[in-house]
């Protein structure tokens, strides 16, 4: 697709890398990391696990597309919530506008991070994943983990040549049996609105998804903490 004026004809889709994943010849500027700490019933660390996180979903990519793209193409982006329902949305800064709900006086359309969801399955295509393959529900029954509240950062931390923020959540296994975690995802409640109060509400939506390189076993009485770190590196 090419829109706009005065486009140089030497620049075309041919210049868009088909697969930048193999392009490893320079330091990565943006890095996401998934860290899991396993603790015994006394809170003592018994295992640590870390891997590079790779997988924004199509929902996240839609949120990162600039307004110019929407204006120039006239397209909307299709968001898919965790129930596999679809919602077309395009932002606008022309009256009456359209955007992600922002805190205001009284007509709030809360848009917020819900949790770091864990599961026991795997999806082969993170890009098109709309939910975990086999989410582990919150509770102390069979096959369940007790979710704490998600913890969010107060700011971006700058440490030397790195800037980062971390989100985290803890999970306790009180189910009476070992539970294995093989997939992790970030769920955000999406709510788009305009000035007259019309809204498009996909609701709970998978934003980020990772399959663990090695599944993590959480024994009965044990707990884990999951940290997602997002950083840029000079």
């Amino acid at each position: 697709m090419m829109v706009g004026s005065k486009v140089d004809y030497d620049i075309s889709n041919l210049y868009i890398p088909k697969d930048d994943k193999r392009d490893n010849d320079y330091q990565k500027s943006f890095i996401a990391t998934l860290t899991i700490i396993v603790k015994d019933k006394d809170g003592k660390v018994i295992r640590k696990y870390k891997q590079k996180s790779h997988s924004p979903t199509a929902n996240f990519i839609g949120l990162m597309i600039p307004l110019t793209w929407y204006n120039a193409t006239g397209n909307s982006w299709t968001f898919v919530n965790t129930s596999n329902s679809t919602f077309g949305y395009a932002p606008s800064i022309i009256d009456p506008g359209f955007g992600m709900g922002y805190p205001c006086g009284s007509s709030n359309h809360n848009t917020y991070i819900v949790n770091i969801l864990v599961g026991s399955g795997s999806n082969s295509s993170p890009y098109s994943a709309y939910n975990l393959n086999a989410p582990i529900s919150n509770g102390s029954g069979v096959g369940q983990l007790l979710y704490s509240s998600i913890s969010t950062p107060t700011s971006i931390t700058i440490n030397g040549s790195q800037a980062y923020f971390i989100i985290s959540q803890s999970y306790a296994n009180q189910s009476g049996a070992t539970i294995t975690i093989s997939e992790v995802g970030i769920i955000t409640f999406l709510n788009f609105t305009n000035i007259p109060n019309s809204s498009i509400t996909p609701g709970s939506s998978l934003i980020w998804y990772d399959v663990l390189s090695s599944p993590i076993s959480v024994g009965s009485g044990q707990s884990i903490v999951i940290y997602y770190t997002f950083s840029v590196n000079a």
Partner: protein
Amino acid sequence: MLIQNEIPKEDLDYILEPFKEEKEEDNKQIISEKIIVIVRDEKGNIVDKREQKMRSLTQYYLALISLGILSTYSSPTSTTATSILVNVLGLPSNQYSYDGDTAQITFDMSIQLGSGTQSFSLTLNSLSAPISNGSGTGQLIYYSPSILNTSNSVSEILTVSNNSGNTITVSEIGLMGTIYLIYAGSSNNFVAQPYNFLFSYDTFSSPISIPNSGSASFQIIITFSG
């Protein structure tokens, strides 16, 4: 939802510890950015071609990413914005909007060229010597950006022409971000309040000369690997 208390030092040390071994699959780019430049003389002949990776995202781009991850509200029931939006981007914690109207947020990006150089900093917020839009001395004419896209990439192309009467040298390039807060003003007027940031900053390995009456296209490709 909890606002983050101190992460245990032992955990934080481990979280921030660099990976000892880089497996091939670990090297996959999540967000990769590339710059392509084509320079033409007054007859339309290509006189220079460049292609290089962007290396230098700022903390403001990371704050934009937080908009995708953390979203805008600090909790499901709060009426305050996330701490990063307030503390890093300087946005209001709660945006006034007339008579119970809503408020929203969205953003845009554009390319800015410059003729200086400076050391990169994560908090950098402008080019060293931005080249302004026009046909006067030291200026380039900026045309409306064009957009290319695939399912996982968006590419912004800035075309400029040089009618200044002299060769113009471009040595730095930035991806400028504008975040808009949309709300109803006190007279029930529509407002899209812009907040400007520098999302990325790069210098060219050697400066790019755009001859008088020549033109150049600068393409920034952002690819997401889902």
